[in-house]
C-alpha cells in the first residue's frame, strides 16, 4: 500500500488535514502512525480505506488507485462500530453477509477467529452485554473474517483500559503471527506503536506531515514482552517522544 504526495483539505482548503504525504507499506508489514491530536491521522486512514478521496495525490493498493473501499481491505474502528441490534454472531459475519457468502458458511469461517480471541460462547449476546475489550475483539473478528490483505486500524484500542489494551495487543501479534497481513495502525500510544510496528511514522502537528519514518528493527515475529524488555524499546520510546513532544505542545497551542 502506497501513498504518493497526498494532501487532504477541508472547508475549501481552509483546513489542511495532512500535506504532501508519502508513505509506503510493504506487503506483510506493519506501519504504525503516531502524531499529536488533530494531525490528520484519522483522515489519512479514511483516505487509505477509500472512504475519502485525497484532495491531491494518490493512494495505491497493489499499484491500483484506491477510489472506493476495496474488498482486500478491512477496517477496525476506535468506536468498535458494532451494530447494537445484531448479536455477536451477526456482527462478526457482517462483512461475509455483504460479500454474499451463504449463511451456512458463516460459522465455519468465523469460528477460528472467535476462538483465537476467546469470544466463543458469546455468539448470541448483544454488544451491550459485553465489555469494551470483548466488543473490540468482535470488531477485530469481523475484519479478519474477510481474510483481507490489508488491515486498517483506527486507534482500535484507544477506548480500552490499559490492561485490556495490552491483552489485545498480544492477541493481535499472535493473529499476525498466524497470518501475515499488511497493517496500518493509527495510535496515540508510543508504546503501542513500538510493540506492533515494523515501521513507525511520526507525524507533525496540523497540517500533518511525516516528520520521521523510523525502522523499529525488531523481528516481526515477536511478543509484546520481548519488545518491552529489549534495549531498543527504551531507546525508541525516548527518541519518538523527543520528536513528538514539540508537536504535541504545538498542537495544544493551536
Amino acid at each position, binding site marked *: 500500500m502506497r501513498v504518493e504526495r497526498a494532501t487532504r483539505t477541508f472547508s475549501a482548503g481552509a483546513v489542511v488535514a495532512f500535506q504532501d504525504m508519502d508513505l509506503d507499506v510493504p506487503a506483510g508489514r506493519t506501519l504504525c502512525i503516531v502524531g499529536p491530536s488533530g494531525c490528520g491521522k484519522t483522515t489519512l486512514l479514511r483516505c487509505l480505506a477509500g472512504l475519502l478521496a485525497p484532495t491531491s495525490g494518490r493512494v495505491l493498493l497493489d499499484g491500483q488507485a484506491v477510489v*472506493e*473501499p476495496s*474488498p482486500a481491505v*478491512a477496517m477496525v474502528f476506535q468506536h468498535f*462500530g458494532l*451494530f447494537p*441490534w445484531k448479536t455477536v454472531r451477526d456482527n462478526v459475519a457482517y462483512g461475509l453477509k455483504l460479500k454474499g457468502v451463504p449463511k451456512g458458511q458463516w460459522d465455519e469461517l468465523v469460528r477460528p477467529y472467535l476462538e483465537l480471541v*476467546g469470544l466463543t460462547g458469546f455468539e448470541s449476546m448483544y454488544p451491550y452485554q459485553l465489555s469494551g475489550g470483548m466488543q473490540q475483539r468482535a470488531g477485530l473478528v469481523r475484519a479478519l473474517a474477510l481474510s483481507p490483505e490489508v488491515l486498517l486500524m483506527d486507534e482500535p484500542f484507544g477506548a480500552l483500559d490499559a*490492561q485490556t489494551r495490552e491483552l489485545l495487543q498480544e492477541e493481535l501479534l499472535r493473529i499476525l503471527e498466524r497470518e501475515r497481513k499488511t497493517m496500518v495502525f493509527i495510535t496515540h500510544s508510543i508504546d503501542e506503536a513500538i510493540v506492533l510496528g515494523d515501521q513507525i511514522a511520526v507525524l507533525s502537528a496540523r497540517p500533518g506531515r511525516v516528520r520521521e519514518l523510523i525502522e523499529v528493527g525488531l523481528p516481526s515475529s515477536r511478543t509484546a514482552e520481548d519488545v518491552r524488555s529489549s534495549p531498543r524499546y527504551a531507546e525508541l520510546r525516548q527518541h519518538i517522544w523527543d520528536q513528538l513532544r514539540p508537536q504535541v505542545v504545538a498542537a495544544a497551542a493551536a
Partner: protein
Amino acid sequence: MSIAEDSRLAAATPSPSLSRKRERNLGDAEAQRRREQIVKWSSRLGSLVVLLALWEVFGRHVNKAVFAPPSRVVAAGIEMVQSGELWKYLQGSLLTLVYGLAISIAIGLPVGILMARSKVAGYALEWYIAAFNSTPMVALIPLITLVFGFDLTAKVIVVVISSLFAIIINTEQGVRNVDARLLEVAQAFRSSERALWGDVILPSALPYIAAGMRLAVGRALVGMVVAEFFTAVSGVGYLIVRYSNSFEPDHLLVPIVVVMALGIALTAITTTTERRVAPWNRQKDD
C-alpha cells in the same frame, strides 16, 4: 490465559455480563427480578386502591345527578355489559380505531422514510406536516362531516388525521438520526444501498418509530371519541354524550373508564412489541 483475566476485569464493571459470574449470580438475579415484580404490582394496585377509595368518599358527597362514586359506576357498568349496550357501541369505536391506526401506519412509515431520504420530499411536505400536527382536530371535524357525512369514513379520517403526523414525524427523525459512524462502517464494508437500510437505518430508527406509535395511539383515542361526539349515533363517544344529557353520571363514567383502559392496554401492547422487535433497547428500560 489472557481471556480469563479480561473477563475478570469485565465482571468488575457495573454490568456483570460474562459467563462465570453470570451463572453464579443467576439465582440472585431471579430473586431480584421477582422482587421487582412485587414492587411493580403492589405499587400499581396500591395506588389504584387509594384512588378508588378517595373517589368513593368524595363521590358520595356530590349530587347524584352530576357525579357518581365507583360503586355506582361498577353497578352501571355491569348493567350495560349485561344488556349488551356497552359492546354494541364499543364495537363501532374499536372498528374506527383499528382502521384509522392501520391507515396511519401504512401511510406514516413510508412518508416519514421518504421525507428523511429525499430533500425534495422533506421540503415539499414539512409545512403541511407542521400545520396538521399542531392544529386541533376539533377545528376540522365540521368540515370533515360536511364532506364525508357522519358514518365510519368520516370517523376513520378524524382518527387518521389525529395519529398520522406523530408517526411521520418520529419515523423521519429516526431515519435522520442514524449514527453517522455506523453508516461509515457500512460504507467501509462495501454495503449496498439496500443492505444499508436493512442492516443499519431501519433498526436504528425502530425505537423512534415505536415512540411515534405510542403517541399515535393516544391521539387516535382522542380523535375517536371526539369524532363520535360530532357524528352519527354510534361509538362510546355517543354513549358519553347521551348519558351526560340524561344526567346519569354513573353510566356516563363507564365509557370513559373503558377508553382509559383501552389507552393503557394499547400502550402496553406497543411497549411489548417494541421489546420484542428491538431487544437491544432493553438495556435502557431494565
